[in-house]
């Protein structure tokens, strides 16, 4: 052991010296860099080395480490804490679970290292509670995500615009091809240099164990084959009908790529004609049939029947659902699948694990499955296999009839898996990326993933420190194509020139750091519900606009003490006309602000595509607004909207010297006033306020309630109950701190 970089913040006893890590950290310190390293080779250590050096070089700055998920961010925090010699308060975790008010305090707490999720960071940047300019280093973990509308892209842009002497370090195991994703990622993150190391790189090889991949082909039982044949015949018919209408080209049969159907669906959904609506239903039918075929071929009969059951018992069935359930093949499916209990892959898997367990009782394995239903089934079957102690590992989202796994549950399962209480983890795709799952001997792909990136991430769970094996279960005649296509893509994902030891690629130049933005001189107050909209993103990038976020009672944007704007896309406008909401919204806006404005966004304002609203009705609505004295403005898209809002704000705030003042809408009743009073307590939203008042009957009763009584109300946990109890008893003017 020796100190990799002579740095006072690094604990030399905690870091095993690896030459390539030090070399990569030194390169990363020279400019914005993307480092691609196979999984399990210590990307986090490199990030810690770079962070320590930046903290030494610029003691006034701090470091922000971004990771796509909460568990991953929390895991990075633990690793950094272990590797670095800094006091406990220097590390802070900021995720969406922390309320915005508290987050602002954390950002200004003087900590040195922040670990956060990108959506939270972006929200705080937009609301003005976080200035990225103060960070001397931004680390983007799983940087291959920095494409399209993912917040990494916006955060990087904002950082490049605001940091005086900033540095970006992007880390990934799957950089993508140089012409495709890699180019986009480097552009988005302002990367100057890309360094790619593979398992074959000479300095990496000593640290990686051999990895064997084995494909096991499984034949479908004849009943499943017959079911597939029928479904495919029906899908071919639907696809041919679409091709006959000139909507699809190429090979019009059941092998049509899903992407082609999705593109067609989004194209048709913007058109408004009876023909396109009929075609849209057929496209939706084709997509559902494809899904059903996938479920039958790779998941099994039980899942397919459960899918049909869900469709049949849905309270509101769409046209395509009805068409699907009426297809002859689908009607025959229950009869065909009734005899088959499960997919034959399940037997192969059980045999594989049984053999493994008898050979090596201390073995550990992960079985990746695509659907949670399948995870449940596989888990259940594996509980009966001798020597196998399975555990389920899936995401946090709750589904019908089943709660998701909380973060604490996930952590517990991983710890118990690590400790050997379980030896097989049956995981959905949440376990694919980033999480530092303990070393395993065997990874099984229960079903192949069509994505090359996901395939690499799954494989990366084994062959880290000791030899590993990957077993892919493939259904003959159904899944082979998807697997081999992903395997081909994997070679591209793993770099353009894998044989090269060190690939260097110069990306586009970063924004000159001298270009500091002008001081923001106008403020636009945005309603919290608009925070995720493209308009806010656009305004946040305007150098002269400061976006402030507040819960507006009326309107979406506040531009001065008298101008408030209600923004509606054409679709929203049609929907709000149908339910009559628009008139109430405008009336309330007029009551509060002198100049209420209705801004309509969309290319063809009188032709909303998905609503059966006639253009005349919309014209009538606009006319009514004009007669009510409400100005109506049109904008083609979110960019136009942002520009119009900026111009109005500048006129009001700079030329007419008007301030932005938040006004409260007159209450509809005294009860509403009471709800408002209670919801002004931090952490108490309108819904909780209503529940508290309903439970206790009056404000005084709520204030007098003790902690346990407060916790009887749904939505009020221990923390909130403590806070409310302390807050209403706190002496006015008392210092900030924990409530009594």
């Amino acid at each position, binding site marked *: 052991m020796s100190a990799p970089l002579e740095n006072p913040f690094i604990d030399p006893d905690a870091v095993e010296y690896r030459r390539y890590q030090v070399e990569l950290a030194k390169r990363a310190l020279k400019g914005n860099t993307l480092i691609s390293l196979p999984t399990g080779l210590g990307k986090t250590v490199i990030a810690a080395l770079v962070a320590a050096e930046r903290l030494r070089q610029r003691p006034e700055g701090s470091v922000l480490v971004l990771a796509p998920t909460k568990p991953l961010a929390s895991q990075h925090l633990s690793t950094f804490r272990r590797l670095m010699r800094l006091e406990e308060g220097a590390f802070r975790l900021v995720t969406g679970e922390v309320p915005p008010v508290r987050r602002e305090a954390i950002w200004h707490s003087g900590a040195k290292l922040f670990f956060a999720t990108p959506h939270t960071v972006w929200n705080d940047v937009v609301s003005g509670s976080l200035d990225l300019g103060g960070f001397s280093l931004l680390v983007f973990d799983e940087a291959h995500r920095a494409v399209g509308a993912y917040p990494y892209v916006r955060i990087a842009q904002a950082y490049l615009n605001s940091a005086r002497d900033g540095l970006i370090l992007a880390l990934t195991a799957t950089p993508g091809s140089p012409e495709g994703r890699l180019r986009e990622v480097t552009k988005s993150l302002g990367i100057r240099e890309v360094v790619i190391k593979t398992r074959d790189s000479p300095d990496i090889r000593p640290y990686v164990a051999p990895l064997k991949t084995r494909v096991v082909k499984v034949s479908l039982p*004849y009943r499943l084959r*017959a079911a597939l044949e029928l479904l495919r*015949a029906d899908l071919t018919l639907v696809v041919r009908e679409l091709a006959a209408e000139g909507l699809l080209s190429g090979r019009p049969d059941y092998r049509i790529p899903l992407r082609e159907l999705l593109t067609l669906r989004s194209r048709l959904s913007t058109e408004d004609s009876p023909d396109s609506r009929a075609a849209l239903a057929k496209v939706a039918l084709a997509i559902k049939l494809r899904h059903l075929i996938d479920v039958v071929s790779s998941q099994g009969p039980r899942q397919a029947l459960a899918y049909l059951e869900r469709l049949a018992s849905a309270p509101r069935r769409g046209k395509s659902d009805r068409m699907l359930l009426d297809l002859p093949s689908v009607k025959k499916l229950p009869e065909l699948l009734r*005899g088959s209990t499960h997919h034959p892959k399940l037997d192969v898997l*059980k045999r594989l694990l049984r053999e493994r367990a008898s050979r090596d009782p201390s073995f550990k394995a992960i079985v990746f499955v695509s659907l949670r239903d399948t995870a449940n089934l596989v888990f259940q079957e594996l509980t009966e296999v001798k020597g196998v102690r399975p555990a389920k590992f899936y995401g946090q989202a709750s589904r019908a009839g089943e709660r998701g796994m909380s973060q604490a549950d996930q952590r517990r399962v991983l710890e118990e898996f690590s400790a050997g209480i379980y030896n097989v983890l049956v995981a959905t795709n949440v376990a694919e990326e980033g999480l530092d799952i303990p070393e395993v001997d065997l990874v099984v792909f229960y079903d192949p993933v069509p994505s090359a990136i996901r395939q690499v991430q799954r494989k990366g769970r084994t062959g880290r420190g000791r030899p590993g094996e990957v077993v892919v279960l493939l259904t003959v005649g159904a899944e082979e194509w998807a697997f081999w296509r992903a395997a081909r893509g994997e070679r591209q994902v793993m770099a353009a020139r894998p044989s090269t030891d060190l690939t260097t690629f110069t990306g586009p130049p970063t924004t000159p750091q001298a270009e500091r933005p002008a001081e923001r001189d106008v403020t636009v107050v945005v309603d919290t519900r608009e925070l995720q909209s493209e308009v806010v993103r656009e305004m946040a990038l305007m150098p002269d606009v400061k976006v402030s976020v507040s819960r507006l009672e009326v309107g979406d944007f506040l531009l001065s003490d008298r101008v408030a704007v209600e923004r509606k896309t054409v679709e929203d406008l049609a929907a709000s006309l149908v339910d009559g909401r628009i008139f109430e919204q405008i009336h309330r806006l007029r009551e509060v602000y002198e100049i209420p404005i209705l801004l309509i966004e969309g290319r063809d304002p009188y032709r909303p595509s998905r609503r059966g609203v006639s253009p005349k009705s919309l014209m009538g609505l606009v006319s009514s607004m004009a007669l009510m004295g409400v100005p109506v403005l049109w904008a083609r898209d979110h960019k136009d909207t942002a520009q119009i809002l900026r111009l109005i704000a500048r006129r009001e705030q700079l030329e007419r010297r008007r301030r932005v003042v938040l006004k409260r809408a007159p209450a509809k009743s005294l009860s509403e006033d009471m709800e408002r009073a209670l919801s002004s307590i931090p952490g108490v939203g309108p819904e909780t306020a209503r529940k508290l008042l309903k439970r206790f009957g009056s404000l005084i009763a709520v204030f007098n309630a003790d902690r346990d009584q407060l916790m009887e109300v749904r939505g009020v946990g221990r923390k909130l109950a403590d806070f409310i109890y302390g807050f209403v008893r706190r002496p006015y003017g008392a210092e900030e701190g924990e409530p009594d």
Partner: protein
Amino acid sequence: MRYVFKLVRDRTGPVKLLSYVLVALSRLNGFTDRMLVRPGHAPPVRATREFVVARLAADREFLFDSGAALSAIYAARQSEEPTIEFRFRVTIKYYYRTDRGRIITLRYDRYDLTVRTVEDGVLLELSMLGGLSRTDPTSLVDMIVEEARSASGSTVPIIVAVAPPGGTLGGSAR
């Protein structure tokens, strides 16, 4: 040509295994699917394949449905004979519809099937009576075994041994 297959399963007696085979045959009766066939020298077409299973008893054929299977199982359980045997005729029909709507019937495959208990399992003896063997004996037995395993409701495999054409797999009677 006679083909002999022997089915054996762990911890399953011959009568129990026979009852699964009987249920499998009743489920196979009436089953249809589609397969690619080549009618003569014409290009391949997707034809419907239909299975008809009939029990042979007293020189007559009785369609073997689920009710018939139940009574056969009952008879097998009650039997005190050392060997229990049932004879079946399996007919596999192939037909397709032309673009003009005409139904073209192809030559059927016909097999005689004898199912017999032996000491440690069940023997299936298949004799080809006619047809082009579009569904060969091995595929047919595979289907019967798949269905039998499904009927058993367990994932324990049924092991199939194949005798050389014309040969036997022996096995003394129960």
